[in-house]
């Protein structure tokens, strides 16, 4: 055999095809993205109006490069396929082929976006911009719910399939609180909110005036044998009622002063207080349900084979849905108070405006804030540290004095608090919900958690937003009807499970324990 033909025998060469093709495909994706962004930027006239010849040729150059890339890719893949099918069988080749098809799909999508954008620049504000906003809002909800799946999986290695119902019970809890405020003000949310605030604001101030530091310290010292009792404690005890009263009076005064001198601020503020109250009620409703669920449906099965709690979870999901149907009946709807109703128009260059719903802004901002808070809690607090320890090794955590059962309850509670907040905010955003509207978002959020890497907190956050964006932008990019967005979402799940079973942020350690 000549030297030349030997070199062509690719199976004889010691090359890592998967790595090489991965880099090659990655390069293609970057190229396609670059070209897409370039064309969008140029045609949207962000850089001035008339493109000169140089820009035009740069763009054409990129286009030709992409085509050349697609063709050489095809030839390369073909060569490897032929060479390797004898040596290594078909699984490795299937992977390679799917990889190549994935990149082709991306190329087609990017070309389509380019075509659509160049055909009508207005489409950005009329379609893409809106879809982007939708995607972020959906993503915020998915991320909050996905965190619940991932937290529970992290410590118990089980999927809490009733989490979608926990979400919707938050919507119900919030709805009853909203209804209460609404009726308190005789069919006016704002009047009800103001009345509620006259009670809540002074109570809040009173609590803030308590010596919280000292109380926390005292709590930590309880039962200790060596701690000396703080000398000023007696004085603090006497001052407690005084502090409470002073705080309440100041709170009441602040509210009245606002009402007198700045009525606009007063109405907005009381509305916000009432909305926060409603969200809190929804969060607590979800939390209570999740705690009961853990106690009744999961804890007794702690030592059982892995499939058992899973079946219990599915049973709990059906039970909760039917219970909600029987107790609450069919459909409920929130009415938005004017403060959070309507859109804010965001100006994009001189292309026009994209309407952004106020509830959408709230969802994205609040979900991001909660994620930051959750992250800090897990990383910095003593309980968060215990959660991580329990996730890694329950019996050793118990040897450190951790009450493992309590940490597990806290984990369920945390996940449910996030889901409850998502449930209420989503309620105000979509307005209508019913007993089974938790099922689909629950499933989607689970998908998001798996895509991001189940058990990983950054993974759930990323997966949530990623899935939201894919669902909103995917159909338009691929030029298929919006009804197929679920197909896209679950295809994504399948693809991730094939290529990265641990998800994007998942690590091997969590896989090992499965």
């Amino acid at each position, binding site marked *: 055999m000549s030297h030349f033909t030997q070199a062509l025998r690719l199976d004889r060469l010691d090359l890592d095809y998967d790595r090489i093709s991965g880099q090659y495909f990655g390069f293609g994706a970057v190229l396609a993205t670059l070209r897409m962004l370039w064309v969008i930027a140029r045609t949207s006239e962000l850089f001035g109006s008339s493109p000169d010849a140089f820009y035009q040729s740069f763009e054409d150059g990129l286009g030709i490069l992409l085509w050349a890339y697609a063709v050489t890719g095809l030839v390369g893949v073909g060569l490897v396929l032929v060479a390797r099918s004898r040596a290594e069988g078909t699984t490795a080749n299937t992977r390679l082929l799917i990889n190549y098809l994935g990149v082709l799909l991306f190329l087609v999508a990017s070309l389509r976006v380019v075509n659509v954008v160049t055909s009508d620049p207005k489409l950005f504000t009329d379609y893409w911009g809106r879809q982007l906003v939708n995607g972020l809002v959906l993503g915020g909800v998915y991320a909050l719910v996905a965190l619940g799946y991932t937290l529970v999986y992290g410590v118990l290695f089980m999927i809490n399939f009733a989490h979608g119902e926990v979400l919707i019970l938050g919507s119900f809890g919030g709805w009853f609180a909203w209804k209460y405020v609404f009726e308190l003000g005789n069919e006016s949310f704002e009047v009800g909110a103001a009345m509620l605030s006259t009670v809540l604001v002074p109570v809040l101030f009173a609590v803030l005036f308590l010596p919280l530091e000292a109380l926390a310290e005292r709590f*930590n010292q309880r039962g200790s044998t060596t701690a000396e009792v703080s000398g000023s404690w007696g004085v603090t005890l006497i001052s407690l009622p005084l502090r409470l009263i002073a705080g309440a009076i100041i709170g009441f005064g602040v509210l009245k002063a606002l009402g007198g001198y700045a009525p606009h601020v007063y109405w907005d503020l009381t509305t916000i207080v009432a909305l926060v109250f409603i969200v809190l009620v929804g969060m607590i409703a979800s939390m209570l349900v999740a705690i009961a669920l853990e106690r009744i449906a999961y804890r007794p099965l702690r030592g059982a084979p892995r499939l058992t709690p899973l079946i219990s979870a599915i049973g709990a999901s059906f039970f909760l849905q039917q219970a909600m149907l029987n107790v609450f009946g069919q459909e409920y709807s929130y009415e938005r108070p004017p403060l959070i109703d309507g859109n804010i128009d965001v100006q994009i260059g001189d292309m026009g405006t994209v309407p952004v719903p106020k509830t959408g802004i709230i969802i994205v901002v609040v979900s991001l804030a909660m994620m930051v808070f959750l992250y800090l809690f897990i990383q910095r607090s003593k309980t968060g540290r215990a959660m991580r*320890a329990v996730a890694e090794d329950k*019996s050793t955590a*118990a*040897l*450190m*004095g*951790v*009450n493992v059962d309590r940490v597990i309850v806290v984990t369920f509670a945390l996940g449910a608090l996030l889901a409850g907040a998502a449930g209420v905010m989503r309620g105000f955003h979509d307005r209508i919900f019913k007993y089974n509207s938790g099922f689909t978002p629950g499933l989607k959020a689970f998908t998001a958690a798996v895509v991001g890497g189940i058990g990983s907190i950054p993974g759930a956050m990323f997966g949530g937003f990623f899935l939201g964006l894919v669902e909103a932008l995917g159909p338009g990019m691929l030029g298929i009807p919006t009804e197929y967005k679920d197909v896209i979402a679950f295809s994504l799940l399948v693809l991730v499970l094939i290529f990265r079973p641990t998800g994007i942020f998942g690590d091997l350690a969590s896989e090992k324990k499965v």
Partner: protein
Amino acid sequence: MALLEVENIHTYYGKIHALKGVSLFVEEGEIVTLIGGNGAGKSTSLNTICGIVRAAEGRVLLAGEDITQLPAHTIVERGVVQSPEGRKIFQRLTVMENLEMGAYARRDTRTIAADMDFVFETFPRLKERQKQSGGTLSGGEQQMLAIGRALMSRPRVLLLDEPSMGLAPLLVQDIFRIVKYLNQNGTTILLVEQNALMALAVAHRGYVLQTGNIILADDAASLRQNEMVRAAYLGEH
């Protein structure tokens, strides 16, 4: 009254009768060692004391108080703390966080910092690596971390399960020196070892465990002279 007293405990794993009536005691300030071959029931003894596995029969007393039925985390709060076999470091937590986990059950939060200093003084290697995650430490460092972590709980009784396992001979000597040092600093220790020679060198008294039964109990010096112990555990014939 002894600080820790184990009275005739029987422990089962399903049908396996792992402990068949084990009794022992540890006086305040002592190092007591529990030696025996593989599968004798040493770890099971410690885990029964800690409440990780439950005794079917018998009692565990701490300063005369019955702690047999208490949940594991409450036993830790009472001051009985185990550094488990195989170190069981939290791999994904940093060295610092592992030590903080050791102090989890403590209420007197103000003295934790001082104990942290003591641990870092005893194990300077840990101080250098305090921000590293536990999984990145070497075997010897992990053992130091495991002991340091147990110390952070300010134990009344420290239970060490095979601290020398899998370590190079020089490190083994280090570990036993540290055990002795901790005891001289006032920690009561129940030391489980397969390395009977070293264990009997640092301990005041010892028990020999065989298939779930205590077959010998004596002070360490006499055990070292015992024909049967020499033959079975000290590798002499």
